[in-house]
């Protein structure tokens, strides 16, 4: 009996892992969606340069770029991101665009909406990061239009207008959530009325597959974690963390003791989830057992704003508002702290943190709880930089509101 259970479990683990592998291998890319393939800000690549010269690693190219906060996603020789062009004081367009990864030369751009102008001038343009499958790219405009666009030529296949079709409300800083593709299903936070907070669409035609929960659109994006051998889609919205299986069935719901986070949830030890946001309670760690969420720790030593944390080797690395920190998820203890990067962002590769300061400095830092160990630092791009870098085949892709650059890091 016991043996049978073990065999069944092993088969289940194998099947789930195969599904996840299938999801993640998008055209041999290693960075095909928001925060990388696993949506955890981590690349599996190794062989990073041990350190850089004072002038930085080799610059492959640097180009001007239209305004936007959308991350770069990469497919070998092509990369994609969303941009905007301001034609006059308050007018302009928002685009989905494709570029040559070797040169930064633009292949095509497709208009997806009017430009999103931020009245407070934090920055204009799209916030959402697209994703792609073999043929098409999927993106969400600032005013809530979801698109399927041909990767080959930028031709629009279909579009769904969240505001017109689902009565979604445009958030203060525009729709910012990033699409997630799993099992031939496009998972979206829609923020629509009548239980259409979260929806799944058929990527072939944009038809609705399932819809769930209530709540307006936030600035968070869904993630897919394997918890207790089950693929779980997590959404943070309206003070709750929701878990669904890939068919849209609710697995569990947890009332958050903190503000709805903009930063992505982080998976720890296969069944614990770290969530962080600004506010009195900075983070909470919950444990999932038998589809039940139980709080195991909360604290104030990490308060993520829009930049998400990374988990590595038993420790959390992230921006506590505007301070880079390492904390223990066991105790919440702050192990080291480093100011000077403003509200920066980070990704994790080969045991190293690649930190981008809010002024465009790229920093190579040892991912260790022992101490802040800065290996190299250089000015990668100029000006306000709030978008996390992307990584593919030893190259780091960086963008901000005015330019983008690619550096060779192996």
């Amino acid at each position: 009996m016991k043996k049978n259970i073990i065999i069944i479990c092993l088969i289940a683990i194998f099947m789930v892992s195969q599904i996840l592998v299938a999801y993640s291998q998008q055209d041999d890319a290693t960075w095909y969606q928001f925060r990388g393939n696993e949506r955890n800000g981590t690349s599996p690549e190794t062989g990073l340069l041990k350190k850089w010269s004072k002038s930085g690693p080799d610059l492959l190219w640097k180009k001007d770029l239209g305004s936007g906060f959308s991350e770069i996603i990469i497919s070998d020789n092509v990369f994609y991101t969303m941009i905007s062009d301001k034609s006059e004081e308050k007018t302009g367009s928002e685009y989905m665009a494709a570029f040559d990864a070797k040169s930064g030369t633009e292949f095509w751009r497709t208009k997806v909406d009017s430009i999103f102008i931020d009245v407070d001038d934090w920055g204009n343009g799209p916030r959402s990061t697209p994703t792609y499958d073999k043929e098409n790219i999927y993106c969400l405009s600032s005013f809530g239009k979801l698109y399927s666009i041909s990767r080959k030529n930028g031709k629009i296949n279909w579009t769904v207008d969240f505001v017109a079709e689902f009565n979604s409300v445009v958030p203060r800083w525009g729709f910012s959530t990033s699409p997630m593709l799993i099992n031939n299903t496009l998972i979206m936070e829609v923020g629509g009325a009548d239980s259409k907070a979260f929806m799944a669409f058929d990527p072939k035609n944009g038809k609705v597959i399932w819809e769930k929960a209530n709540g307006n659109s936030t600035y968070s994006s869904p993630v897919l974690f394997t918890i207790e051998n089950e693929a779980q889609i997590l959404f943070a919205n309206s003070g709750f963390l929701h878990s669904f299986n890939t068919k849209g069935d609710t697995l569990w719901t947890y009332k958050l003791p903190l503000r709805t986070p903009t930063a992505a949830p982080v998976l720890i030890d296969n069944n614990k989830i770290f969530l962080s946001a600004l506010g009195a309670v900075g983070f909470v760690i919950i444990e999932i057992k038998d589809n039940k969420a139980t709080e195991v720790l909360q604290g104030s030593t990490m308060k993520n704003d829009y930049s998400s944390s990374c988990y590595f080797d038993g420790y959390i690395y992230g921006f506590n508002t505007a301070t880079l920190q390492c904390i223990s998820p066991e105790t919440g203890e702050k192990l080291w702290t480093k100011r000077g990067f403003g509200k920066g962002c980070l990704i994790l590769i080969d045991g190293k943190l690649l930190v981008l300061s809010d002024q465009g400095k790229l920093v190579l830092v040892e991912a260790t709880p022992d101490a802040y160990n800065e290996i190299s630092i250089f000015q990668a791009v100029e000006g306000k930089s709030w978008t996390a870098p992307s990584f593919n085949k030893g190259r780091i892709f960086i963008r901000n509101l005015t330019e983008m650059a690619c550096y060779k890091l192996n």
Partner: protein
Amino acid sequence: MKTSKIKILILIFIFSSPILLLAQDVDKIISKHIKAHGGEKNWSAVNSMKITGEFTAFSVVEDFTFIKTKTNYYAEQYLGQHKVTEAFNGETGWTIDPWQEIEYARKINASEENVFLQKNEFCTPFFYYKKKGHIVEYVGKEKVDGIEVYILKLTRANENVETWYLNAKTYLEYKCESMWIDFAWASPAETYFEDFQKVDGIIIPFYVERIFSQRNRIVKIKNVEINPTIDQSIFEMPKTEEILKLESFVGEWNVAVELWTRRGTWYPIDNTTSNFEFAGTNMIQENISYERMFPISIISNMTYDSKTKRYRTSIFNDFNSSISILEGDFSEDSFILDDIKISFGDENDDERVFTQLSFTNIEKDAFIMEFKTSTDNGTTWQPRDRFSYTRK
């Protein structure tokens, strides 16, 4: 002899009490802190400072200018896209902060006052802290962020409490925890001080980072000018440009009051006096009393509304307890306001009587103010009262 021994024992007891030991520690630490900052002598030679550099807010780096005297503080800095100007004279302060959608100077609130007091410190609050009415208590010695620090609790004269962390090696400040403001709301802040540099014998932190609420602000000093000549007028709360256009009305006036008769002539009814004065950064107030058969006192407040880009006046009449609100435009030779577009929820009242107030013949020492009424939505206006002003 016995009494002397007892006295000595009492003194030994007093001087060995922990409180006094702590007090001694505090003064010793503060003395070293002041010395580390360049010493009392060098600081006493500083009467003013012009500090310039870069200020970072919302990840946007812009130039700033801070001007400090021993009592006053003035700053021009950018918070993101908006230029914020502020000043403080040790007691009261003002700010022009477009983030609050107010384009003119406004008085600061209590939370801002506490922050301006902190900004107003010429060096750190520990300089002459007793004279300032502050209380300092020694909390202990700890390691903070890997740095050995002395922790001091500072209770300001205004009873706001701050915790200061002084580097135990250098005696210079490493960190301060105090109340700050986020868009005029009180918020706890952590401030870090780095890059101490010598300027004319005094030591100043050239890099100050403050983290509060969800914000971080960085002051990066590039230049400190010691004892520049300061134009004291910069500390005065400025009037709005638009209200200054009405400045010629300000003063004491003799006023001849006339009434429009049924025969179509002006009939003199009283001679009185009036006073126009600035009652705020964006307001001129008139007080006038006269007899129109019965004694009447009127208070008028003239302001400029930056949203509608029109002048507005509210006229309170104590005799019939009425309030009129009029809007209008100012030109060089006339200033006409009416209530045609002012709604009191009586849009459908066919019998509503509209009021117009006009200022004409505006000269340096004289002008005429006239009230008119209309019963046809302002198509025609009938004279009512006329006030001829001549400067006293």
